[in-house]
């Protein structure tokens, strides 16, 4: 190894990267999203997707769902650092692929094409709770809800059928059965 010229230590071994979904309950106040996003960018963590909306109008609590990737150590740090923020009430963390958790992402697709193509589109989307939001004789706006990978594939398949615009949300998550996150 070449002689290091740095006053800093060399990086150690990097652990296995895992994908996690982190749900954060926060006070819905000015700048709160910037605090969360700033924590991630400032410490070099990665946000793959983000979904946020107020879920309790009376108490002004927003629920933020963040999909992120990192080594177990990084994921632990994300959890602990989030809990230190003043407007954060609680943090729930789970691995992608855990059995008891439901995820959904929502996507809107705009397709240009004749009725034949549009029929094909409807067929392909059938499995993913399709809702037709708008239809003209040469266009279609269709909404689907599915998992991330499914939407990825769907978008790919629709390309040849006249997909001209895609709008997607981040993932939202909920536990199965009677229990809730804590």
């Amino acid at each position: 190894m070449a002689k290091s010229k740095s006053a800093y230590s060399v990086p150690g071994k990097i652990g296995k990267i895992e994908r996690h979904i982190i749900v954060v309950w926060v006070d819905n106040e000015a700048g709160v999203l910037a605090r969360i996003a700033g924590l991630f960018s400032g410490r070099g963590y990665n946000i793959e997707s983000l979904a946020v909306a107020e879920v309790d109008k009376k108490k002004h609590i927003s629920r933020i769902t963040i999909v992120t990737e990192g080594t177990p150590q990084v994921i632990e740090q994300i959890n602990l650092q989030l809990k230190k923020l003043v407007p954060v009430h609680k943090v729930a963390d789970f691995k992608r692929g855990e059995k008891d958790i439901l995820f959904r992402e929502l996507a809107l697709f705009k397709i240009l094409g004749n009725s034949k193509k549009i029929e094909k589109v409807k067929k392909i989307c059938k499995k993913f709770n399709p809702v037709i939001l708008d239809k003209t004789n040469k266009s279609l706006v269709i909404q689907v809800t599915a998992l991330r990978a499914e939407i990825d594939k769907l978008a790919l398949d629709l390309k040849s059928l006249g997909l001209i615009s895609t709008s997607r949300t981040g993932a939202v998550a909920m536990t199965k059965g009677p229990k809730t996150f804590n």
Partner: protein
Amino acid sequence: MPKLLSGAKIVFKALEDQKVEYIFGYPGGAVLPIYDELKNHKSIKHILARHEQGAGHSAEGYARSSGKPGVLLVTSGPGATNAVTALTDAYMDSVPLVCISGQVPTHLIGTDAFQECDTTGITRPCTKHNWLVKDVNDLSRVLHLAFEVATTGRPGPVLVDIPKDIQFKKGKYKFFKNTLKKKLNGKASKKISNSELDKFIDLIKKSSKPIFYTGGGVINSGPEASKHLRELVSLTGFPITSTLQGLGAYPGDDPQFLGMLGMHGTYEANNAMHDCDLMINIGARFDDRITGKVDEFSPGSKKIHVDIDPSSIGKNIKVDLAIVSDVTELLEALNKRFKEKNKNFVSSNKQKTSKWWEQIGKWREKKSLNFINSNKVIKPQHAVQRLYELTKNQDTFITTEVGQHQMWAAQHYKFNKPNRWMTSGGLGTMGYGLPAAIGVQIANPGKLVVDIAGEASVLMTMQEMSTAVQYRLPIKIFILNNEYMGMVRQWQELLHEKNYSESYTAALPDFVKLAESYGCVGIRAKTPEELDEKIQEMINVDKPVIFDCVVDKAENCFPMIPSGKPHNQMILGPEEEEQISDEGKILV
């Protein structure tokens, strides 16, 4: 109906209820209503700095030497941005600061108005929390919450940004106490369980090569923590080392103390950290200047980590027993439990750790803090040693700037009490020491306060001498003047083939004349012979002093752990020890 008060009055009411005695600040357009109100509040004294960074470091020095939060008052725009370095410094070193900043009136926010900046946006990553107050009726709640956030859990800086119109507007004042329902650092405060304590004690009893590794958390927990730490160390008979920030929590001249550890720590402390079988970390954070190469850090030890901040545990180093707690609470409970069941532990355990102490003795024989003294030029280490010898009999407070002089001060000045040592460790802010000394002197009138400085660092905040003179604060600026940015020069010599790129300062001021122009006293020492007499003269003067101690220009700071190396591969000196003759050795 409660009496309505202006925002500016509410600010002072809150400060009074928080028992604030001093504000460090600098006025400007957007805080004028608050400054206007100052005259009506005699219990609060304002210290006018010469730059907001200086005000911030003064507030830090005040906080660290008194245990109370430091309060900072600055204007909008440049006032706030100038305070950012001090806020970041306080954030890294866990110093409780409350910064109140003025802001342009609410209706002008976002219009790029004169002296407007996104203060809460800029300071978000360098404060524990910050607030922009847009409703005067929120002001008292926010201010009291600000003090609470700054001083609880792991302490740190907070900022309250108050638009000018809010300072004029009238609203209700209420004294809020404990508005924060949950514990600030993530985990709800829970009682330390006996099973945790028993695990701790069990590890202590099983160990034959133990070491205590203590940090700034012991200082931040208050003077009681140091008492309990001293008791625990004497109950166990174990060796102890300290981080830069933890110096003073345990007496520096005690035989169980191995000196500071880390990049410029002692040979015995670093080797003991590397070879130990039990590491007891109390209030330290496994900083990269301590661990060196993480993969090879103390490979064979069980590790206990006590920290009030759960995110500090497991961040850099995995540990075997993690306890989230205030140091005082933990040590009090631990000592009590330990004493109940382990009478005469030290004598019964002596056999078990005797080999370990023998090994430590061998490491100590290296005398890693030695240097070759000279009778022609003043060696910087010698200067710090003389300063220590001539000031150790009085209660002395030391601040430093950042660089070689800082490490020499840490190595050669022995601290016996907590809160006597104020240095910028985490951020490494050159220019910290002089303004910090001002804050220290304000919190400790009548005490000797010395800033051990480098000539490059001290010029960064030299303007604060004017503050010291204005408030008759007899701080002593003890400059180890080698005309170089010494630490930069050292790294260039060792790692960049002696290419001293931009590390020499040409055209330095004459520090004696500079002192005189500020209205304080200038003293210069050029030879070892006159050093003691000049230091004594400095101590005796009841005025601020700039002491220009002309030292060896090429001296390097040893020992050191080279980058990327584990603890047991320290460089001891220039050509290792062969070159150092016995006569030339100064025993430390």
